[in-house]
Structure formats: C-alpha cells, structure tokens
C-alpha cells in the first residue's frame, strides 16, 4: 500500500514541477474555450446554450492532450520497467498512476470551469452542474484514455494515434456528461438519470482501464 501511495505522491510531484506539464492542460482548456466565441460569434444567448457542450469538449481534448505523457516519461527514464517488475500488482500501479494523473491534470480543469462558465455566460446552477458532471466524468476519461496511453508507449507511437484510438471510446462519457448538464439547465428530463449513468460509466472504467492498460504493458514491453 505504501508503495502505491509513494507512486501517487511521486507522480503528482513530477507533474506539478518544472517540465511536468500538468498545468498546460488547463491553459489548453482556457485557449480552446476562448477560441469558441471567435468561431461561433459573440452572441451571448447562443453561447449560453452551447456552453456546457463547449466546456465538455474543451475538457475532453485537454485531458487527452496530457494523457500522452502518462507512461512515456516513465518509459524514457526506465522507471516504467521497475513498476512492471515491482511487487505491487501492475493493475493497481496503473490505477495509482491514473489517479495521480487525474489529481494533477483533471482537478485543475474542474477548478477552472467556474471562470470559463462566467465567460460563456452560464449562470450559477449551470456552472455548478457542468463542474459536477466534469468532476464525475473526467476520471472516466483518464481511465479509458490510459488504455490508449499504454498502447502508445508499447508501440513507441503517441500523439495522433492515441487520439484516434481513445476518442471513440469517450463518446458515452461525452453524451451523458453533456446530457446531465443540459438537463440541469433547461431539459425536461431530470438531472439524476444521466448523472447516475455517468457515475456508472466512471465506475466501469475504473475496472476496465487498469486491467486493459496492465495487459497491454505486460504484453507490449520487452
């Protein structure tokens, strides 16, 4: 257990220090959100209506952008081999790495959401609904994206291949995340139904993600 805690502490510390690049995700999130009004036009009513979708897309792309580094840095300096050979089960180690990655790169996105919501003319309920769905949904993005990151590191290919593999898998999270936020703002549907499905998807990804990533690392690294 202490090994996993140490792994989490180490990953967070590396991500937050110089060269870690966890906070670049937030900057990217901000930039994408700022780009949207240029493409759509500064119509505040339209931005209010599209706001949750814009924030969700931005968060999805931002978390995808930082995923590339989840295993690559460890692979480059050799510590990934030590993690694979270590006594802690590889599945748990993968889960710990994903958790650390989410704490370092996912939580700042949620912290930035209220400010960005303000710029998109979302009111307090809408912003809190989006922030709440992001809080529940982004772990699912990290844990499914981890599968792609593990595949990419074993193949020595990252970037676009990772995006092509991971994005289709993140569609359910996007659908229910946006549906729950819209339901809280306007919808005739209740907030609870899509929100609990979103929670369920996150819980499923906590199981599938570490196992698939560990399988891919075990079979791929030699």
């Amino acid at each position, binding site marked *: 257990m202490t090994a996993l805690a140490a792994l989490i502490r180490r990953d967070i510390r590396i991500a937050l220090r110089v060269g870690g690049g966890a906070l670049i995700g937030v900057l990217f999130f901000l930039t994408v959100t700022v780009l949207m009004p240029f493409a759509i036009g500064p119509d505040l009513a339209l931005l209010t209506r599209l706001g949750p979708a814009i924030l969700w897309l931005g968060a999805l792309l931002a978390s995808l952008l930082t995923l590339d580094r989840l295993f690559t840095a460890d692979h480059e300096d050799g510590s990934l081999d030590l993690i694979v050979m270590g006594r802690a089960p590889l599945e748990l180690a993968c889960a710990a790495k994903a958790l650390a990655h989410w704490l370092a790169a996912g939580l700042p996105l949620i912290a930035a959401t209220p400010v960005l919501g303000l710029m998109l003319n979302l009111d307090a309920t809408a912003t809190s609904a989006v922030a709440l769905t992001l809080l529940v949904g982004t772990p699912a993005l990290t844990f499914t994206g981890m599968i792609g990151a593990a595949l990419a590191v074993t193949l020595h*290919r990252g970037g676009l291949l990772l995006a092509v593999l991971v994005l289709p898998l993140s569609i359910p999270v996007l659908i229910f995340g946006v549906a729950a936020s819209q339901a809280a703002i306007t919808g005739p549907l209740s907030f609870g139904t899509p929100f609990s499905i979103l929670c369920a998807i996150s819980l*499923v990804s906590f199981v599938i993600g570490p196992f698939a990533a560990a399988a891919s690392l075990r079979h791929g690294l030699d």
Partner: protein
Amino acid sequence: MTLIDLANPTKFLSLTARVLPWLAGATAILLLVGFYQAAMAPDDYQHGAVVKIMFIHVPNAWLSMFVWSVMSLAALGTLVWRHPLADVAAKAAAPIGAAFTFLALVTGSLWGRPMWGTYWQWDARLTSVLILFLMYLGLMALWRAVDDPSRAARAAAVLTLVGALNLPIIKFSVDWWNTLHQPASVLRMGGPTLDRAFLIPLLVMALGFSLLFVTLHLAAMRNEILRRRVRSLQMMQASQQAA
C-alpha cells in the same frame, strides 16, 4: 482435426486450399439465389421498390458487428492461448469488417434519402455504426503503425477486447441520445415481424454474405501468411547480404 492442428501454417494453407473453392462456389450460388429472390420479392406497400436495398443493407449491418466478434475471439486467442494464427485472423478480418460497415452505412444512406428525405441523420443506429466504422479504421491504423507483427498483434488484441466491451455501452448511450431508426424486426422476442415474402430472401442473403465473409477472411489469412513468409525471406536475404 482440432484448432491446435491449425497452428501449423502449412497445414492451414493446405486445408484452406482444399476448402476455399467449395466455399467460394457456395457463396456465389447463395448470393445468386438471394439476388434473384430479392429481385422477385414484392414491393413494400410503404417503401415501394426501395425496400430491396434492405436485402443488401441488413446482411452488411449484421456482418459489421459479427466481424468484430470474430476479431474479439481472435484477440482472446492471441492474448490467452498465444495461438499463432489468431493474430493473422484478427489482422485479416479488420479491413473486411470495415468494408462491410462502410457498405452498411452507404446503403443505409441511399435508403434514407427517399424514405427520410435525407442522406444522413444523427440517429442512434447510424451514429453507432459510424463509430464502429471509426473504430475499425483506428484498429487498422494501429496495425499499420508498428512494423513488428507480433507486437502489433498484442496491442491490437487489447484494443479489440476493450472495443468489444465498449461497443454495447456506446450503442446504448447513443440509443438513449436520439433515435429514428426502426427497432429490430427479425431477431426479437415473439418471433420476426417481417413478412415471409421478405424474410426468406433476407435470410438467404444473410447466409450468402456470411459465407462471403468466411471466404474472403480465409483468403486474406492465406495472403497474410504468405506475406509474412515473403517478409521473413527478405529479412534473411538482407542479413545474408549484410554479413
């Protein structure tokens, strides 16, 4: 003759060389009969002659999902049993599956134009099949991204299995999101709702297309095995010349 005997590529090649002509013949006969029956089938009271697209569209749509299940079985064969032919089977199936999915999308789109008044609609079935198509393409990109076939096979196997777990989730989420497509009318509780005049040609066509898949798949596997042999011979030649 068990599955393990087929692990020897030479045995597999000689067996399929004997089986393939028969399979190809059966496929041709079934498809010809199917096309004839489909052409003779009565027009639908609502869809008119356009309903004949169904005889191509529905088998392709079935196969688009069936091929992914075949690839998932092959992926299990790669990861669990390390069967030497499993990754060949998985690699050969992916482009065929993508082609069936593409045909299902195109015929569905052509059917949608006169019936729904639009080529494309962001409807649940269409969208989930489109995502399936994207995942086939992603898988093919993964196969092409790595030059070492066995390494690519294991990565592709993980992705195939994750996709097999995720496809139902994607399908249900998209269903819930927006739907216009008709519900299932052949494989459903309480028997098919389709009239016998349409059902029999449809089943013949489905069987014909499934045999077409088996034929193409075996042929593609043969090609892949031969391609790998050529590759290793070339590598041997190159290393001999270098030495």
